[in-house]
């Protein structure tokens, strides 16, 4: 349900998650193995994310991070082990509870920004006018006002990523799977987008699995960070950031504690890629 709000960021959750039960956002990955032909990409990996928790996953390139997200989303099934999202263990059930934001924004070039954001609503059979009206309210709240009718090719990289994130959010799923969402952006835009995402998650809390190779990004955005080894990916270390999604990003990532945590994460990464 959507309501028009005057004070954007202070309003409570208004997109909602389709009345999903409170535990629907819990993600449990238990001892999974996965291989593509002879190539073993994940080995005995277990992870858990509590409802509304942001779990960051960092690891060297090719450690199976993207595969892990596809497995959780229900787009694939693991060779060994189980995955559950809330009470849903079947792939089609998981698919109904997870929204996936791939590395590339994958905005459809034949639709305007607002029609891209409203895709999930249209897929559920909502009429175009109503879908646009609902998506339009989010454009106002998330700083995209005035760009509703723009084609993706007319938007900057940061704006495209914001539209792609709104598209994921509007799907109303309790779990968001983000695959290196800001990897294609320049450093300054990436920093702005991280702060923007932190704000968005404050008003729209979701369980988030954030895959990234940017340690700083993981430590700033996540409640917990899991460090994976190189292929086949297994858990090397788990870190707990002190001030996840602090409103002053610049200050938060320059504290000595943050620096120490980053050093620890880098150490774990090096250890895991040996």
């Amino acid at each position, binding site marked *: 349900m959507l309501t028009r709000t005057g004070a954007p960021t202070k309003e409570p959750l208004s997109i909602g998650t389709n009345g999903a039960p409170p535990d629907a956002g819990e993600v449990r990955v238990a001892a999974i193995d996965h291989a593509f032909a002879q190539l073993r990409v994940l080995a005995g990996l277990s992870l858990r994310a509590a409802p509304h928790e942001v779990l960051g996953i960092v690891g060297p390139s090719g450690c199976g991070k993207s595969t892990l997200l*596809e497995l959780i*989303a229900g*787009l694939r099934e693991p060779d060994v082990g189980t995955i559950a999202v809330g009470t849903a263990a079947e792939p089609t059930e998981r*698919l*109904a509870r*997870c*929204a*996936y934001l*791939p590395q*590339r924004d*994958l905005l*459809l*070039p*034949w*639709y305007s920004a607002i029609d891209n954001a409203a*895709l*999930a609503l*249209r*897929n*559920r059979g909502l009429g175009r006018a109503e879908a646009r009206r609902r998506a339009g309210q989010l454009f106002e709240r998330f700083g995209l006002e005035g760009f509703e009718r723009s*084609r993706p*090719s007319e938007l900057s990289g940061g704006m495209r990523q914001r539209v792609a994130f709104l*598209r994921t959010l509007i*799907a109303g*799923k309790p779990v968001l*799977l983000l695959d290196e969402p800001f990897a294609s952006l320049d450093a300054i835009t990436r920093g702005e987008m991280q702060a923007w995402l932190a704000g968005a998650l404050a008003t729209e809390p979701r369980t988030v699995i954030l895959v990234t190779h940017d340690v700083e990004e993981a430590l700033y955005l996540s409640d917990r960070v899991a460090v994976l080894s190189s292929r086949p990916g297994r858990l090397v270390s788990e870190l707990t950031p002190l001030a996840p999604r602090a409103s002053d990003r610049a200050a938060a990532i320059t504290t000595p504690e943050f620096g120490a945590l980053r050093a620890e994460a880098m150490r774990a990464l090096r250890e895991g890629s040996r």
Partner: protein
Amino acid sequence: MRRYLLPAAVLASLVAAWQLAASTGLLANVLNLEDFLVPAPSEIAKTLGEDRSLLADNAWVTLKEVLLGFGCALVAGLAFAVGLHLSETLRRAFYPLIVASQTIPIIAVAPILVVWFGFGIGPKLAIIALICFFPITVNTLDGLRSVDPDAVKMMRTLDASRWAILRRVESPTALPFAFSGAKIAVAVAVIGAVFGEWAGSSSGLGYLMQLDNAALNTPRLWASVTVLSAMAILLFALLALLERKVVTWR
């Protein structure tokens, strides 16, 4: 404007050279032909003017055949492409047959079609549709299959049904390919119409060309060819224009 200048200049100089060579009898000599077999452009132009109502009447007949035949091929081609795309089994079963259908010389099937459909518009439509069907189907199918697999995954996590993926992702991806197929098809459709009329008819530009060919009335034969070419180019240009209006994201 500049875009059209160069091809127009090339065409004009070719026609001028032809005119010069034909009017001096040089062309016939060089080609080892009789004068009356190589009419000068001026003669063709004269015939175009004098016989304009005859040419227009027959062109109208041919145009109707082309449009109807192309229309049938478009509907069938798009439907086939979607069917073959959605079903692996159908694709395996029919794709080789569709390719094989293109290797059948039209000359061979035309008499059969005339026997089945008579001398009316039927056999012409069948021949034109048969020729047009192939590029439309193959191009559209290639387009549907070229879809970004990540976009399909993204749609699946956004609760998209198979139909929604086809409608919102695959069809728009395939649209420019379908237009390419249709443009090729419309250009060969006029040739199909001529073949169809040769196989048996009492009107149309192909029929007229057959008469003039037998009567060695070469200026009017080439006048028909000119009208036929203009028709094909016009239809091609219309499709290209439509493509620009529809495919706005490229």
